């Protein structure tokens, strides 16, 4: 790629190259959010309703992922699990297999699951205990009560905190560049290295991340309004009228 450093138009090609990473970043975030949801909901249920040993296991999981920085987790999982897997699959397939995206999405997803479990746990705990009792009294099994009565309410309550998790995860996803996933940040790094121009491309990355945050939060806000239960709360800023246990602040 020939780049004339003094020409503004010469910035266009790298800029487009960077924008093309948006799809992978979005896939990374959605994948990790979804995985976090799948991991986090059962974890939260276990932490509220489970037997003592299961609570202990769930608690250990949560502490492990909350206690270690994302960057360290990425390296642990990449070199501990995915790199050997790559080597094995490469031997098996006969050509070079690379799994940086899978490694990134799995690590971010498992970590997000720990954080999301705390969001859902707070939401479940904020429901009146009588909801669960009333469900059992009608003959629901424990999982039935959870699936049909508790979670539909808890997930609604969790949307604002979930939006928060989205915005944090979005920014955490930038760290995945260390594994060489061709998402926004690693593309920026490549272009910076190629052009020796730092500021314009970092600003571009900032703008894309800002835009993705804005779109995601708008979308979740709409979802929140859409799933609002009529008659509950009147405050526009907090239509549920219920205070959630705040999830622990995260540092990326």
């Amino acid at each position: 790629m020939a780049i004339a450093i003094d020409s503004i138009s010469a910035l266009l090609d790298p800029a487009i190259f960077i924008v093309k990473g948006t799809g992978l970043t979005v896939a990374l975030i959605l994948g990790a959010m979804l995985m976090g949801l799948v991991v986090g909901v059962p974890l939260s249920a276990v932490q509220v309703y489970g037997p003592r040993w299961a609570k202990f296991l769930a608690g250990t999981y949560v502490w492990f992922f909350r206690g270690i920085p994302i960057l360290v987790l990425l390296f642990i999982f990449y070199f501990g699990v995915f790199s050997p897997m790559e080597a094995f699959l490469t031997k098996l397939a006969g050509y070079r297999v690379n799994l940086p995206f899978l490694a990134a999405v799995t690590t971010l997803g498992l970590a997000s699951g720990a954080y999301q479990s705390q969001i859902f746990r707070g939401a479940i705990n904020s429901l009146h205990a009588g909801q669960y009792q009333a469900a059992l009294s009608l003959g629901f099994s424990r999982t039935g009560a959870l699936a049909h009565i508790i979670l539909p309410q808890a997930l609604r309550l969790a949307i604002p905190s979930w939006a928060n998790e989205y915005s944090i995860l979005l920014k955490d996803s930038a760290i995945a560049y260390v594994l060489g996933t061709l998402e926004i940040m690693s593309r920026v790094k490549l272009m910076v290295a190629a052009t020796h121009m730092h500021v314009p491309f970092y600003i571009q990355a900032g703008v894309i991340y800002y835009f993705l945050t804005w779109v995601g939060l708008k979308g979740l806000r709409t979802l929140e309004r859409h799933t609002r239960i009529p008659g509950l709360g009147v405050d526009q800023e907090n239509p549920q009228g219920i205070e959630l246990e705040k999830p622990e602040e995260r540092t990326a």
Partner: protein
Amino acid sequence: MSNVNLQSGPSGRDNNSQDGAGADAGARNSRTANARTGRPLLEVRNVSKSLGGKLILDDVSLSLDKGQLKVLIGPSGSGKSTLLQCVHFLTPPDKGEVVLDGQSAREMGQKNICAFRQEIGMIFQDFNLFDHLTARDNVAIALRKVKGQPKTAARVRAMDELERVGLADKAGLYPAQLSGGQKQRVSIARAMAMEPKLMLLDEPTSALDPELIGEVLNVIANLARGGMTMLMVTHQIGFAQHLTNEILFMEEGRIIERGTPGDLLGENSGSRTALFCSRLTELTGR
């Protein structure tokens, strides 16, 4: 449509029967059938329960015949609510047996305990309607998800039950849009839709504004007249004494007095119950 058709027999109630006389006949039949077997519908035998190291229920026994309503009264903390929870096995007792219609709850195991609970309806002091569902779906959800009825059938049944408690016009509203009295009536409809053999009522009017108590008591009186077997914790003693033939007085986890309203509440009975109720009356002015 009158409110006569509120009874529910063990054989289940005809979904489409709007015929009060027919329903009454059904109630009489099942009562005579029960008289033949001579077995009470509910037997609570020597139930004890400790919570947090404190003995809440101390060797409590009682029985209910089919169609009977018994009233449980006593000071707060005497174990009334815990007793209802134990009967329902929401809180399994430490010791003792709960037998409903010949079935021992303890012998049913974790899997079948849900089937046991299905046969007992519970009305809570604070209603516990499912906040995310409309009145109609509050009634319909257990029919669909527990009994496996198709959606439309469950909704039709739910509308029938709401009509019985006079709330058909509120079917589309969410709990947060209903008054306390309406919420409690929906919760009664919700419990009745499951065709329970027994209803447990835990201070059903205690959380209500005074002017809303009447509508709920009316519905309960209709259930009683329809032949529903009920165990009711209440402080509405003036109301309850006309529906029951036995009052159980609880204190410190034991039933310390039991007898007819006449015996326990008479002018010169000298009972603990009469003393307690006179204090209630002084406080509320009723």
